[in-house]
């Protein structure tokens, strides 16, 4: 890693560490009364674990994501939550869900596979970047510096998981009618996709050819949510409760429990990429 990248990396994680919301200081989620049937919700547990992790130095956290494929219902809630959270344009998807039909009638089934960025510990995507715009930060998240990215798309090709997409500057409402006072029209309708987005704790507006338009884009585990004690959007919204997130260095965390089981696997392990996303099968 270059000196600059490493410095930026440090800056980013320190910045996030310093940005822990004051709200978190007295976070004390009041649990619903517990009995045989009403255990702590996974989201509540993970939120508490997140708070605990944020109290540690950034370098001591190890963010991992676990996706229990037995519980995935192929709904794409995560895909949409991510689009809304990060105000992603058409063509940019951080967390697709592949749906594959298998077998022959009547012995037929479907496989659902949500695919976030795997935040590899040996990421093939970063080393191909000619301008070191993408790198692994101190918390182990592969980030993109939009201001440095020149949009060459080398990283898109380098990623063996297809986790990166390119921002062509489109919007979902483009080419819809505008300029009438009797219908809402495009320019009043498109605020939700054109307002400042919060990726990397920044405050960017997609417009014209200004970054992130023209950049590679990818999942960052919602670093901007994590810093304030909120779980990644895909994790919160999962209706099958298949996605889990947390600090694997915390031996009591839910993710630590889940990944150390024989049915936890990682995709394309043979490539040596050391993904930080685990699937339970």
């Amino acid at each position, binding site marked *: 890693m270059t000196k600059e990248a490493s*410095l930026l990396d440090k800056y980013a994680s*320190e*910045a996030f560490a*310093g940005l822990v*919301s*004051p*709200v*978190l200081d007295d976070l004390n*989620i*009041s649990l*619903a*009364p517990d*009995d045989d*049937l*009403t255990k702590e*919700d*996974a*989201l*509540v547990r993970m939120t508490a674990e997140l708070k605990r992790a944020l109290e540690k130095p950034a370098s001591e956290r190890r963010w991992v994501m676990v996706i229990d494929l*037995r*519980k995935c219902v*192929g*709904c*794409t*809630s995560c895909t949409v*939550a991510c*689009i*809304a959270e990060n105000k992603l344009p*058409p063509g940019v998807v951080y967390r697709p869900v592949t749906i594959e*039909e298998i077998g022959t*009638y009547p012995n*037929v*089934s479907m496989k659902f596979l949500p695919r976030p960025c795997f935040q590899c510990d040996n990421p093939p995507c970063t080393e191909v970047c000619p301008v070191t715009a993408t790198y692994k930060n101190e918390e182990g998240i592969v980030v993109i510096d*939009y201001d440095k990215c020149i949009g060459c798309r080398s990283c898109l090709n380098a990623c063996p998981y297809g986790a990166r997409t390119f921002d062509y500057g489109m919007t979902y*409402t483009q080419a*819809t*009618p505008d300029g009438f006072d*009797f219908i*809402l*029209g495009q320019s*009043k*309708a498109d*605020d*939700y996709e054109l*307002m*400042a987005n*919060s990726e*990397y704790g920044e*405050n*960017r*507006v997609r417009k014209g050819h*200004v970054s992130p338009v023209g950049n590679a884009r990818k999942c960052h585990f919602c670093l901007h*949510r994590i810093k*304030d*004690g*909120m779980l990644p959007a895909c994790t*919160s*919204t999962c209706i*099958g*409760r298949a996605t889990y997130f947390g600090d694997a260095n915390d031996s009591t965390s839910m993710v630590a429990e889940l990944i150390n089981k024989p049915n936890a696997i990682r995709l394309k392990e043979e490539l040596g990429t050391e993904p930080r996303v685990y699937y339970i099968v």
Partner: protein
Amino acid sequence: MTEPTSKKQEISRRDFLKISGVTGATAALLGNMHEVFAKTQNTLAASGEGSYFQASPESIIYGECLQCNTQCTVKGKIQDGVLVKVDGNPYSPNNMMTPLAYDTPLKESALVDGKLCPKGQAMVQTQYDPYRIVKVLKRTGKRGENKWQVIPFDQAINEIVNGGKLFADAGEDRVVPGFKDVLATKDAKVISGLSADAAAVTGGKMKLDEFKTKHAAELDLLIDPEHPDLGVRNNQFVFQAGRIEPGRNNFAQRFTLNSFGSKNWYDHTTICEQSHHIGYTYATAQYSGGKWATGPNHMKPDTINSEFVIFWGTSPFEANFGPTIMSEAVTKAVVEHGLKYAVVDPRMSKTAAKGWWVPVQQGGDLPLALALIRWIFENQRYDTKFLSSANKAAALAAGEKSWTNATWLVKLDDKGHAGTFLHGSDLKLVEKKDETSADGKTVTTTWVTPDGVVFKIDPFVALTAGSPVLVDPADDKNSVTGDLLVKTAVQGINVESSLQLLLDEASAQSMEDWAKLAGVDLSTITRLADEYTSHGKKAGVEFYRGAVQHTNGYYTAQALVALNILIGNIDWKGGLSKGGGGWNAIGNADKPFDLGADHPGKLGAFGIKVTREGDTYQKTTLFTDYPAKRPFYPYTSNVYQEIIPAAYAQYPYPVKILWLHMGTPGLAAPAGTEQIKMLQDTDKFPLFIADDIVIAETSMYADYLFPDLTFVERWAFTSAPPPEPIKNIRVRQPMTAPVPEIVKVDGEEMPISMEAIMIAIGKALNLPGIGKGGFDKHGDLNRPEDYYLRGVANIAFGDKKDAADAVKDADDAEMEIFRKARAHLPKAVFDEQKWVAIVGESLWRKVVYVLNRGGRFDSPANSYSGAFQAHPFASLMNIFVEPIGSGINSITGKPFSGVPHYEPAQNSTGVPVNNKDYPFSVVTYKEVVGCQTRTISNYWTQGGTGIVPTNHVLINPVDAKPLGLKDGDVVKLTSSTNPNGTFDLGNGHVETVKGQVKMTQTARPGSVMVSFHFGHWAYGARDVVINGQTVKGDPRRNVGVCSNPVLLLDEGTKTTCLTDPIGGSASFYDSKVKLVKL
């Protein structure tokens, strides 16, 4: 809308580095990074410097989704006045398996986003659809020509109220009737007098001539003096709602039934799953005072605690009630508790993909259910102890909460038809006694045995060890356990027990023949029945529209409810649950507000509805002989597909004004495109108004189209859906500024909406129950909040008269959050002074407490009580349904059956459906991202750019290959009642029902699967001209195919689709088609 700021205010990281005076990342910078971020993020953080705006409760308003009818509780995130993201409400069991405690502070709950399905999240794009209409449109061309002009709201109200030559400019010389012309009377006394005497006429207590003499001065108020039971002419106003929900439907009913006095209020349930509801509502009917009163219309397996569940014709991962609530209960139970489940469906849904798929043949549901029942009888796998309990006392003694009529004896008539129950009086075991009270005012009737045992009802009869025993179902002292399978004569009366009648029907075919009709292997049926009955009470059958949108839908529903009853799973943890229920929002005399009864001058509409629902043909003055001109639907309501065809046929009477509210029967009903032709007839529909959020497939034919509010912008309150064992009630409230124009209604500013139109009409005609003094005890009804906020106050107050059940007051900090979170709302929507005045100071902070949490949610600890549901049904469940068993089909003149009876798909005439030469069953279904017609605007998920950009004609390769079809081929769908596979939109536009072929192994051979959500011809898919300017349609919305236009028309009525004569459901699943390669 408020003007967004941060959209214009670009601050990149580079910029803020400049702002802070630093050109590079240096160690010096790190120290004050927090401050830098805090400054630059001001536009993101509504408050609380340094925090992400989504983490601040001031950026959050809790509301309710209505992308589908599950109506999930949601957490709306507001960024600079714009709703940018929607998550689940963490206080609600809808969005959390175990929700946060209700008193969790707002700043803590802000950090927890609950789960929510993708369709719900895409509500942002329903809200900010560029095609949302803002102002009132009046047509300037022919109906459906899509030429409009904008007119002021006041002018529109004036025109629809007063009528006149309203379309002279469009070349129509006719005089259009207004609301004032249809309002025959607003005198409540006159209406109640006519109503009572019309009932006396139909009840045979008054001659028609006597009626005419007595009401000579009022005969002109009636639709037809020869048929006073049709009601007053007010009934010629019809309110037809597509999308409407509790809270809002209470408001609309208040207007339609009791302010305007029309009986013709409808929602759309029969195109959803009405026969499911009717199946339950009669299975749960209770007997008292000599009558059956229907019960809850929805029960569900308690999946999370269950061991085996059959999902029948439904996919909880994609639809049902709904994916957000039900998915985790399944996945968690499967992975953590070992739940097994089967899915009965011709289509392999996503739910089926993860379970045991039983690919039933279309229309094979009832045969399969009866085969399972037969197997259960033959193998004695039913719960004898549960079924033997004939009354409450027996249930209690058996350790049960509920009991059944399985043992009660039913009389057989001379043709062997089981119509009515045997009563004690039939056997002369009791004698009826009338006692008049001392003041002579009330007569109390009892039935007394020779031994002096007194019954409040004429008791039912069961056999115990062969001897007749009298049964009062509600008796909790004297236990009666009866013999289960009885077929005998008692005192010369041929009788059978209810359970025996069920066995008879299940035995109508051999197992092999049932298997053939079901299209399921006998071995599979046996395995399924064995598995289902191997888990004691921890099993259940859940079914929804796939099982019941058939002409035999009610019987199918009844058979599937019977499968639950047979294993005695009612009220058990892991068994069948009626849900946790909720608090009462509408109110009553013991609550702060009584929004129903408090209606000065309440008109109390009466008369036969234009759909003939809720009335029995034989008991009307229209009865002459069979067949009736069009079917009567005595057991059901909201027969949506029949409203427009009935009005078109002018049977039983003509309609003058049709108000279509957020509905699109032309697209959503089977063969609904036939209705498009009808709506163009200005004689049959003299005034047609609509309110909608866009110009949609059916509202485009309206004379006047009013913009409506989305569910994001308005109010309602809805009780908890049945899958939730936790007691709760939800509140919908405005989350964003309204898109529709803000207008003044009698001086009150409000956005145009259904409510605003009703209030404006009410005030123009001085209708009772609207405006000043609209409530007798509670003040005025001048604006929507006058109604809805008082409902919220009722919720906050609780259900105890002494307010012992009230919520806390919002503290000062919560009050401040409440205000800041609503800073973006215009005064026409949020006006604190007005809101306080509406509910009163004493309740105001409690109301805020509820609004700050989006409803009221009980602790999950109150969900179960030992081995039972904490909110049990604890009442009688019916195997034999007497009201239906004693009823007669108005067309065929044949009796209905009180137990599920197999009959193949048939027309209203009783003639089996003709699918000859049409080989493929059409299986329509919902993707998780779509609702029937209103999600095409969601570009994230549909609309050509989304996750499911379009749909296809899905077919198994074994069917496609012989036809030479391959992926991408375009085929036309044709059927026996639409042999051309086309539909006529009028004005020269004829469209073809065509779609792209895609082969899939998930289709049962012999079927083609077509999802809803596509095949739009409006809703932004088509050019429209407004004020002479062309608004271009978006080609992304004009994709895919809707198969509804080729679903079969009923050969009896010729204008309505096939319909279940009992449940009223529109048949979506009895039609076959041919594929014609184009």
